[in-house]
């Protein structure tokens, strides 16, 4: 898919983002073609989330420009930004469902941008949307959970609900911010496969951030590596080996980098457990 002559759907040039004196992104150039599946690789703090949030119009750049779906993001009005965000879907590491709402209602909130005014309760959504939501739930294999409270679902199931919610937007771009970082290996595998399938079936453009090289290698069309807010790697996945990624992305020996990532994972899961206890 990489290298086809389709017009870019995302063009980022010279993007720099500062938070106070902290530089989260530095002079990022990135072009993504329609239908491409891109992995954004980088350690925690390397700027992956910040970059994705810019593409969804949730942050405005300190310097540089972004073109997304033919819109110049940094010049958009609040109203046009909302319209852009409705065409770009996003899923998150922590799923971000409303725990007390049913699975179906959580999925329906993905369609809010198409409705005027707030909604509360499944029955306040138009019937056609409810049917559509059930269709998406069927697609992610959770139709039978439609009327359960979302907090009762496992992490992997919740992320699939979040994917169904994203599909309600009928998006052209799907941004995934470490979608499997809180999941066990089996659910991770399942969620990553699902995203890949949906991307292929719907011709979605996907930009998915990860910090596990293993997951990234067999998955996307292309890997973009971020380090301290800078793009340090941008290459097609085909024929890429793990040590090649490690070398460019970490500039350290693969084993050391791998250990660093494993330490980070362990720390994160520890924090998660603590957060759950608190």
């Amino acid at each position, binding site marked *: 898919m990489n290298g086809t002559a389709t017009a870019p759907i995302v063009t980022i040039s010279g993007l720099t983002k500062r938070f106070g004196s902290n530089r989260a992104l530095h002079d990022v150039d990135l072009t993504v073609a329609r239908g491409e599946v891109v992995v954004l690789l980088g*350690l925690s703090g390397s700027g992956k989330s910040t970059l994705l949030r810019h593409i969804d119009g949730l942050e405005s750049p300190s310097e540089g420009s972004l073109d997304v779906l033919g819109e110049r993001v940094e010049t958009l009005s609040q109203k046009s930004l909302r319209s852009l965000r*409705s065409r770009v879907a996003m899923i998150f590491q922590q799923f971000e469902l*409303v725990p007390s709402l049913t699975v179906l209602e959580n999925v329906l909130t993905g369609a*809010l*941008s198409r409705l005027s005014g707030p909604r509360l309760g499944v029955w306040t959504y138009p019937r056609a949307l409810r049917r559509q939501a059930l269709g998406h739930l069927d697609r992610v294999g959770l139709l039978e959970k439609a009327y359960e409270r979302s907090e009762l679902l496992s992490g992997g199931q919740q992320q699939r609900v979040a994917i169904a*919610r994203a599909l309600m*937007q009928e998006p052209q771009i799907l941004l995934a911010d470490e979608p499997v970082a809180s999941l066990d290996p089996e659910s991770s595998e399942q969620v990553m496969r699902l995203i890949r399938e949906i991307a292929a079936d719907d011709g979605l453009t996907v930009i998915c951030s990860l910090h596990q090289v293993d997951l990234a290698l067999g998955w996307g069309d292309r890997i973009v590596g971020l380090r301290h807010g800078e793009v340090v790697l941008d290459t097609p996945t085909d024929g890429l080996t793990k040590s090649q990624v490690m070398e460019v992305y970490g500039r350290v020996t693969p084993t050391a980098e791998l250990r660093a990532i494993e330490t980070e994972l362990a720390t994160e899961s520890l924090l998660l457990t603590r957060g759950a206890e608190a």
Partner: protein
Amino acid sequence: MTTLEAPPATDLPRAEAPAPPRLIRPSRLAALLVLVAMLAFSIYALSTLDFTWSNVLGSVANAVKVFQEMDPISLPGPADLAYLIGLTLGIVILGTVVAALISVPVAWLAAENTTPAAGLRWLGRAVGVVTRAVPDVVLALAFSLTFALGSPLPGIFAIGIHSVGMISKLFADAIEHSDDGPRLAIRAAGGSRSQEFWGGVFPQVLPSWIATALHRFDINLRGSAILGYAGVGASGTPCASPSSTSPRATAAASGSRP
């Protein structure tokens, strides 16, 4: 984070060096000073009061008089009593419901994470503080001047307004403690501000809203007899008529000297 390079923090110029640890922080010291001042003032105030044991013993006669005037307690007939209790319940329920409803926009304004603008946040908090500060009895008395005697409306309005203070305060706290994630997910999907609130925040804080309203209902129910005394048509109303003819009793009850 474990990396094999120099940590990035070192090349960031820090605005100021970290302050050396101090044993007593200024805020603590200030709090302590205020406490000591308050204690000293209380002792001084107590010493200026004409508070002696002989005075207390002398007041026993007053207390006896109060209890004598209470006898016989004359309750209304069963039918009237049932009507008055029903009326009281109605006033308290309606007043609390009105307050709970008004509290939603007030809390939305007052909560840091949902307020549309900093100025409006102060407005929301001011509404909460003012409604909490004015006692419902005062409101009821004020409203009873504008409605027919015995009308339940002053009671409903009084409870409805005064309760906004507590419900909106606790509700705003709950909103501020809610998880930001679902709200931001709706924003990321192109939702509007009101959709963020009703779709991402309100479902999370709904249980706390109901619990606070029920708690306030309980308080209002217990306070309703006094509201009735203020003449706003609750079960305290009949109590008001006999004693209003005998101001001595109230004077005695409050312990003031004739």
